[in-house]
């Protein structure tokens, strides 16, 4: 009895601490996600340990990641187009350097590399070179290091290219992934909402109790199947089907993703909107019938409008699920991080990108951080959606 | 206008109609006495049935309003007052009828001198006026007028107190009118009661409009309480 004086407050405090656990976890998620995600914006997009060099007379002092990529892809071939002199750009590779200078000139451990670089730059002022920092730093006379812009948040959010591993400078724009996610999710809901609504109307208002008791658990079961199984099913059934139906080179497309995600969103939409439809007061239905309306007119004109906020919540919730869905999207959308133009083309969603690339990204590197930044974007989207759902369903 | 208002309006109208009938009865009785108009006296007797049925109607109205509408506050007081006023009016109606009955019992005309000497006509007039004023006070919501009724009852009492002596004097002076004199005496005893009934009416009217209970209070207080 006496012992309880000490144990009770202890357990009550423990319960209290656990009560805040969900809030605590959300906080932790935010902290860790954003700590990693934000540090991304302090990183240079140039590969770690490397620098870009140009002739010290070259007026171009700063380059953007996009420009660097274009230069090395030889889309930009003249300094003039990026604010320099009218001079062709010469890309100096390590191979070229080792052909122009003998191994003795370079030194056995490349200790004379700076001198060679300087003399090469003198002979060809339009040169741009990409070399490890360790062997060049502080010893160059003619060549000068180019400053490279860090990837700004606005750039990150609006850039339309996602080449996280391209050298010498990575391009990391969320746009293609974001649009891919939106495209797949939007069409998933476009497919799922009418079907789900029809099914929820059937279950809530039309089906008799016996039929409902059979159908409802089956539909709820649909929600329990792991997403990887849906992904697998999509891979072996829907992907070939889409490929054949539209005569495509590959079946892994946004459309396949939308179809699989639609199937996955159905149980959520059906369950939530059925609950919403069921909240319609019986007397309101009867009032409509008493005015001579048919059952269908009552459903269309009274019950559905009454449940509108619940149905909206169902749709938003469905979109949220689709946006956050990882495995199924990863397995059937084709994973091509380009700006989507059509439904019949491979796309890549944000969660799929994280899942596919995190394993390959070097720990704590630029790419690694970029994926956390992507995670932040995804977290924000789902947070907004969750708050929206709460807002919508609290109304009325 | 609510349903209850309609019902109350009907009740009030019934009551006023009954009241006017009773005033009318008294006036006709007085006329019958003065003119020794037996037909008129008969008419008063006949009309007494109407007064009685009016009382039943008012009672029924009140019962329905109580049962169906559960009146409160001034509505409640009106129904309560209507019940009692109906009752009082019925008694006044009875008095009017019995006065008429006494007129019919006389075999000869009433000698004018007797009527003068006993002051029965004065008494009759005051009583009539009290009932009529009470009606006006009720209809016009005039509680000041209602309060004047208490004073006037004293006039009736004074006349009534001297009635016995005066009737005796009449019998001595006009032995042939001895029977009529005694009838006049009986009438005066009845008319004195009209004063009491009028006081009750005044009390009910004041209760209705002011929600003040004046029953069983000292006379001074009733009159001064304005």
């Amino acid at each position, binding site marked *: 009895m006496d012992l309880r004086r000490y144990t009770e407050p202890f357990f009550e405090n423990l319960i209290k601490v656990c009560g805040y656990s969900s809030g605590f976890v959300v906080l932790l998620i935010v902290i860790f996600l954003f700590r990693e995600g934000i540090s991304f914006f302090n990183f240079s997009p140039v590969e770690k340990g490397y620098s870009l060099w140009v002739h010290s007379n070259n007026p171009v002092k700063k380059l953007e990641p996009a420009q660097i990529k274009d230069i090395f892809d030889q889309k930009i071939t003249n300094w003039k187009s990026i604010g320099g002199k009218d001079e062709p750009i010469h890309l100096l590779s390590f191979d070229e350097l080792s052909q122009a200078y003998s191994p003795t000139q370079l030194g056995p451990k490349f200790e004379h590399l700076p001198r060679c670089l300087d003399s090469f730059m003198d002979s060809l002022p339009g040169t741009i070179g990409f070399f490890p920092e360790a062997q060049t730093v502080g010893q160059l006379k003619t060549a000068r290091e180019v400053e490279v812009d860090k990837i700004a948040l606005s750039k990150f959010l609006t850039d339309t290219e996602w080449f996280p591993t391209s050298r010498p400078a990575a391009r990391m724009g969320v746009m293609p992934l974001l649009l891919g996610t939106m495209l797949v999710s939007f069409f998933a809901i476009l497919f799922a909402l009418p079907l789900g609504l029809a099914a929820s109307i059937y279950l809530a208002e039309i089906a008799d109790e016996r039929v409902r008791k059979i159908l409802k658990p089956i539909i709820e079961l649909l929600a329990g199947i792991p997403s990887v199984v849906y992904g697998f099913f999509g891979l072996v059934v829907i992907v070939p089907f889409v490929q054949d139906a539209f005569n495509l080179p590959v079946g892994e497309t946004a459309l396949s993703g939308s179809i699989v995600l639609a199937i996955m969103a159905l149980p959520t939409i059906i369950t939530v909107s059925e609950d919403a439809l069921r909240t319609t007061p019986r007397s309101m239905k009867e009032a409509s*019938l*008493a*005015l001579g*309306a048919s059952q269908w007119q009552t459903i269309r004109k009274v019950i559905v*409008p009454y449940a509108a906020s619940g149905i909206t919540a169902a749709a938003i919730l469905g979109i949220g699920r689709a946006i956050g869905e990882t495995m199924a999207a990863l397995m059937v959308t084709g994973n091509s991080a380009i700006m989507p133009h059509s439904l019949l083309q491979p796309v890549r969603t944000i969660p799929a990108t994280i899942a596919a690339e995190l394993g390959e990204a070097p720990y704590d590197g630029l790419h690694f951080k970029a994926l956390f930044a992507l995670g932040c974007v995804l977290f924000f989207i789902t947070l907004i959606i969750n708050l929206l759902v709460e807002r919508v369903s609290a109304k009325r | 206008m*609510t*349903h209850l208002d309609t019902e109350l309006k009907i009740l009030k109208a019934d009551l006023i109609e009954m009241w006017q009938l009773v005033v009318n009865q008294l006036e006709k009785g007085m006329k019958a006495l003065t003119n020794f108009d037996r037909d008129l006296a008969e008419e008063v007797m006949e009309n007494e049935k109407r007064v009685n049925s009016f009382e039943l109607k008012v009672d029924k109205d009140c019962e329905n309003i109580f*049962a169906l*509408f*559960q009146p409160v506050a001034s509505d409640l007081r009106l129904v309560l007052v209507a019940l009692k006023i109906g009752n009082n009016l019925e008694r006044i109606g009875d008095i009017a009828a019995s006065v008429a009955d006494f007129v019919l019992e006389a075999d000869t005309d009433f000698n004018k001198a007797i009527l003068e000497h006993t002051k029965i006509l004065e008494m009759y007039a005051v009583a009539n006026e009290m009932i009529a004023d009470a009606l006006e006070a009720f209809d016009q919501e005039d509680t000041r007028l209602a309060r004047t009724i208490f004073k006037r009852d004293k006039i009736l009492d004074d006349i009534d107190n001297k009635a016995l002596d005066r009737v005796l004097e009449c019998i001595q002076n006009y032995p042939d009118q001895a029977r009529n004199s005694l009838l006049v005496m009986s009438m005066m005893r009845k008319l004195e009661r009209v004063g009491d009934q009028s006081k009750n009416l005044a009390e009910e009217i004041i209760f209705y409009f002011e929600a003040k209970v004046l029953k069983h209070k000292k006379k001074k207080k009733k009159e001064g309480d304005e």
Partner: protein
Amino acid sequence: MSNKIETIDAHLYYGDFHALKGITLGIKENAVTALIGPSGCGKTSYLRLFNRMNDLIPYTQISGQVLLDGQNIYQIKPAEIDSLRRNVGMVFQNPNPFPKSIFENVAYGLRVNGIKDKSLIEAQVEKTLQQAALWDEVKDKLNQSAFELSGGQQQRLCIARALAIEPTILLMDEPASALDPISTGKIEDLIFELKNQFTIVIVTHNMQQAGRVSDYTGFFYLGQLIEYGKTRKIFTNPTKQETENYITGRFG
């Protein structure tokens, strides 16, 4: 006055539950008939016979006759049920306007029954809102949501909604039980006004209300009609002891 509705030995079962045990009663035309009785006595079930609302509850069985203008409404074709319901307006316990504008609430019955003429609908909406003594309060905000009205206004809107399709009968299932006394008074006055044009049947467990608004009263108890008669009679001198006990509150 003639009978607008008549039931002859009407029985109603919900599954095994015998809810109405042979009710024979005539409802007078253009008068207010109140049905009173304790909860579960069958008064609401009886009311719902008249527009076949009980059909909506599963496992319901009905026997006996329910005559509306002399026609047995349980022998009409299923297709005629909608038009039966058009002829019988209904107002419910809780104000239940549709999630639409004030105007659309009243216009609803017209629209679902195929009236498309805009000016006709507008005229009818105004007329019925006038009838329901609501027009002056809402004429400037017809397009606002009906939910923005007060409870009492909502209930009058529901009455207007029922009146819009011009029924001859108005069924009211405890129309004021969810309202404050002022709103209740307004609804009762409205019933008083409307009884010249409609045959009104009102279910209420508020006996005083039955007394105030009705011309005839039927007392139900345990699925049976114990007593029926003029309201004045029932409330001043009921014939049956059960009625006396109920209306005096000495019940059970």
